[in-house]
């Protein structure tokens, strides 16, 4: 369901590529703030990130990928926005932002959840695992490697959510058949339609686990 305030990509915040000068919006916003706020930066922030920029912050203490963090957030900040906007862990993706697509899936206390529907202020003391926390140094998690081996993605936008959900699906032992994997992975939408290869990657990893 698309609504004016909800799910649409913010047009000002997309990646910008202007010929020889390539700059992404994260660097742009950061650089703007560093020079005391360029005039152009103000409407960008006002238009898009207002809900994350509001007053009334509280500090949330939580563990992200084994690292203890204290992060100041507004009450309204989702765990997803905490990860992406406050800790620079942008591997977790914002798709629908209404719990319908699964792109934002992370493990909270070892269980998969939609981080977009999780208020950050409710994560005090929580242990969060994101896609950045799966690999062991340079060694990919077996499911990450299986996604590469089986070509289980195309555009890649849903992939981190698929992998986090797949890791949980394997831990839950809901991998007895391709049908069972499909049912228990149904909270992760792939608009490229890589489902067949996603199921294969999960099935193979489950067998080897």
């Amino acid at each position, binding site marked *: 369901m698309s*609504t004016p305030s909800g799910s649409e990509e913010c047009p000002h915040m997309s990646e910008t590529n202007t010929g020889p000068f390539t700059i992404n919006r994260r660097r742009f916003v950061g650089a703007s703030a560093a020079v005391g706020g360029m005039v152009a930066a103000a409407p960008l922030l006002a238009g898009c990130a207002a809900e994350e920029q509001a007053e009334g912050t509280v500090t949330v203490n939580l563990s992200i990928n084994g690292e203890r963090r204290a992060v100041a957030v507004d009450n309204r900040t989702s765990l997803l926005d905490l990860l992406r906007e406050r800790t620079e862990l942008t591997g977790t993706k914002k798709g629908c932002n209404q*719990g319908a697509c699964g792109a934002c899936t992370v493990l909270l206390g070892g269980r*998969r959840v939609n981080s977009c529907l999780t208020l950050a202020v409710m994560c005090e003391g929580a242990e969060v695992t994101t896609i950045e926390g799966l690999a062991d140094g340079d060694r990919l998690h077996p499911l990450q490697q299986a996604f590469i081996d089986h070509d289980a993605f195309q555009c890649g936008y849903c992939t981190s959510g698929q992998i986090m959900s797949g890791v949980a699906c394997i831990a839950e032992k809901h991998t007895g058949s391709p049908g069972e994997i499909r049912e228990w992975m149904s909270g992760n939408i792939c608009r490229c339609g890589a489902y067949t290869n996603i199921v294969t990657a999960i099935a193979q990893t489950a067998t080897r686990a």
Partner: protein
Amino acid sequence: MFPFSFTKAIDERAALSAGAAGGRYIAGGTTLVDLMRETVERPASVVDINALPYREIQLGPTGLRVGALVRMTDLAAHPEVRGQFPVISQALELSASAQLRNMATIGGNLMQRPRCLYFRDITSGCNRRQPGSGCPAIGGENRGHAVLGTSDQCVATHPSDLSVALVALDAVVLLRSARGDRRVPIGSFFRLPGTTPDQEHDLRPGELIVAIEVPAGAHTSRSGYLKVRDRQSYEFALTSAAVAMDIQGGLIRAARVAVGGVGTVPWRLPEVERALTGQAPSVQLWTDAAARAADGAKPLSGNRFKVELVKRTVARQLATVGARV
């Protein structure tokens, strides 16, 4: 999302006190956070109740008791619930997604808001969201809407699968406020829209759902849930049926039937139950009894198909549950 004050209730007393002062309870947040972001919900104060002790799953001779903060995943997976109340496990596992079921609670499941695009869209009228602003669904996009229990004020479908199973099994909702406890049969917990569609349930200001109780009975173990959807998984019901039967000596001693996806509230079917009780199971009986499943239906422009579909859904599930050894 509009600004709000946030407090984490450290115990029941603190929660009830904050609730009495107008605070909105939050547990899993899967409905509330979503609707707050859409600005459909605009609570000034949000009270986190996750520290409260309502986490029990107890089975005894009188039945099942489930704390309001039990997560959908955990109730569905409970081995004794699977064995003795399969309709509950099945209704839960056919709901939402694995992620949402890890977050969402049993109490919150009962408190889901109506399933209607216009309800979610603050640019359109909606008598539930804004009494008196009209119901665009009646003359608009209403394929997913209700055919039973509707009024000229509202035709939104009740979204909960679990509640359909609980209505079939005569569950009781345990409520608590600073003024004391109440036990409300789930059949009267949900309110028909009538002329006051904004009043969705029998919960008083500040009251908390503490637990649900499901009475034991010979019918509960022979039970199941069928959900018919536009896609195979992770989708609301077009129609659904919760069936429980006690069959002994070749006769149906008791039958419990409720349907979802078709009513403004979870819809019990006493006429279908009467047609089954005392009869011997047969293919003909399932069809004949299910023929009463849409009694009183008032289809809209886009959902006439539900009248036939709900009968077939009930007939199919009667056959499935009736055939089970």
